[in-house]
């Protein structure tokens, strides 16, 4: 696997970002917004996995590693472990053939793996 860049931008997701994401997405469950519930069940307010997935994809677009026309692209995301608000999330971009793998880590623990690859849609790649 070739590493295009060792890292994409690091991110620290704040409580304000989670609240903003909850507001715009409608993903407003207690895991993200109810501090008492989240601490009891997860040790703190959870960052939306979708927020991290978008951060990685948008960072990859910003750095020009993929084009802006995403038609004919498959994005596969595996959420491995939750990320708590204010944890430092490191990111990595790797390429294998025509697939890009974006990974988010917290303290060397994998939080999320996002793989982007072209797919054939009705006969066109």
């Amino acid at each position, binding site marked *: 696997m070739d590493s295009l860049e060792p890292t994409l931008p690091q991110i620290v997701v704040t409580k304000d970002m989670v609240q903003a*994401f909850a507001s715009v997405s*409608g993903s407003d469950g207690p895991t993200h917004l109810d501090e008492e519930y989240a601490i009891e069940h997860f040790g703190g307010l959870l960052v939306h996995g979708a927020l991290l997935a978008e951060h990685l994809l*948008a960072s990859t677009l910003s750095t020009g590693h993929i084009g802006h026309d995403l038609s004919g692209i*498959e994005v596969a995301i595996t959420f491995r472990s939750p990320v708590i608000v204010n944890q430092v999330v490191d990111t990595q971009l790797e390429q294998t053939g025509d697939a890009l793998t974006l990974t988010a880590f917290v303290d060397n623990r994998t939080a999320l793996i996002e793989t982007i690859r072209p797919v054939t*849609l009705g006969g066109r790649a």
Partner: protein
Amino acid sequence: MVEDSRRSNQVSSDRPEALGVLTFDEIVVGSEFELDAQGIQPDQVTRYLRACGHDEADLYGDAVPPLMLAMVCYLKGALPKPWPAGGLHARERIVIHEALKVGQPFTVRAHVKEKRTGRRHRFVVFDIEVRYQDVTSLQIERTMTWTA
């Protein structure tokens, strides 16, 4: 977030708050749900990207960011009852066919593909299609943990 109309062929959509949450046992494999949504507006895209740590509002041009379309809670809106607290996304597989333009109304169709019980969690797998007019924009396979 968006105005919508909700349709289901399996479970009544009357008064979801009064019916409690949708439990694992209530979910029927093969159940189908559908929701018609108004278009996503530019300010929503801007707020979404900013919440994700990006200030470039035009990053996706005039298209709705595909993960925004895929991952935000249109499925939640399509279900006949609220899903239980504490559920998490486990896996997503999203195929992007054609970008949905900002402001374009769309339809979300979902069906329950599978239910399974793992060692630590119960999982529900949905197949979801987002369409506008007669065009498929996204196909999504979503696996979620289910807590009730």
